[in-house]
């Protein structure tokens, strides 16, 4: 796996520790969706604390992954977006779309519990 995926209880915790090329980012997306299907996870947390750049390509991969996870009936929250990354994404015009976000892992896990599945990415954000 390009990014290690940990199953903790009923959730998957995915922490992106290294910058990904576009090809690796697509592999990451594929592997997350496969793991959600395989483990029938309740929800996933994608931790991007280590990412110092999120450009339009990576932003798209992240938001698509979250939306696809929700179409599969699970929940998705992205945590650890650095303030300077958030400012840059918003200034570029799109941010991370409607994806649910939280400050850190703990708040992300709390948010998963409160979210409804299958209701689209807009809920719980």
């Amino acid at each position, binding site marked *: 796996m390009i990014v290690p995926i940990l199953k903790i209880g009923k959730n998957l915790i995915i922490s992106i520790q290294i910058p990904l*090329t*576009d090809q690796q980012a697509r592999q990451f997306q594929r592997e997350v969706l496969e793991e959600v299907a395989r483990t029938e996870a309740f929800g996933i947390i994608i931790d991007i604390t280590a990412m110092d*750049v999120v450009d*339009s*390509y990576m*932003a*798209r991969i992240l938001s698509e992954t979250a939306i696809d996870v929700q179409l599969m009936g699970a929940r998705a929250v992205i945590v650890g977006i*650095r303030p300077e990354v958030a400012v840059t994404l918003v200034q570029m*015009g799109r941010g991370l779309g409607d994806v649910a976000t939280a400050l850190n892992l703990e708040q992300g896990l709390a948010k998963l519990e409160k979210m409804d599945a299958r209701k689209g990415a807009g809920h719980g954000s």
Partner: protein
Amino acid sequence: MEARKMAILREEDVILARQLVRKMAADMTFNLVDQTRLATAVSELTRNAVEYARSGDIRMEPVKNRLRREGLKIVVSDNGPGIADIEQAMTMGFTTSNGLGAGLPGTRQLVDEFDIRSTSGSGTTVTIVMWKR
């Protein structure tokens, strides 16, 4: 500080280029948000060079304006197919690759100066400048 130049030949070079520009911007004591804006802009422009022109190069040069304000000037150029309609390419959402179409318009939002020149059949050159705050 000296100008730096590197070839952009593959996807990995997109990551290396943005790490190099961040290092240069940090050494010039740009603030963290501006370092991130520059690294993100470089990520978009070098990706376009790899994706649409197969390869290109990037040049990063510290500059000063008439008021002696310091800045970082970055030129990303390629010898690819060029862009027939620049205005269209600069429109948010326009893409010929099933992308987001946010790379060029997003980059323009991030920097202080943005210039794009392209000739159909002979390549594209994008120049950006960020001034120190």
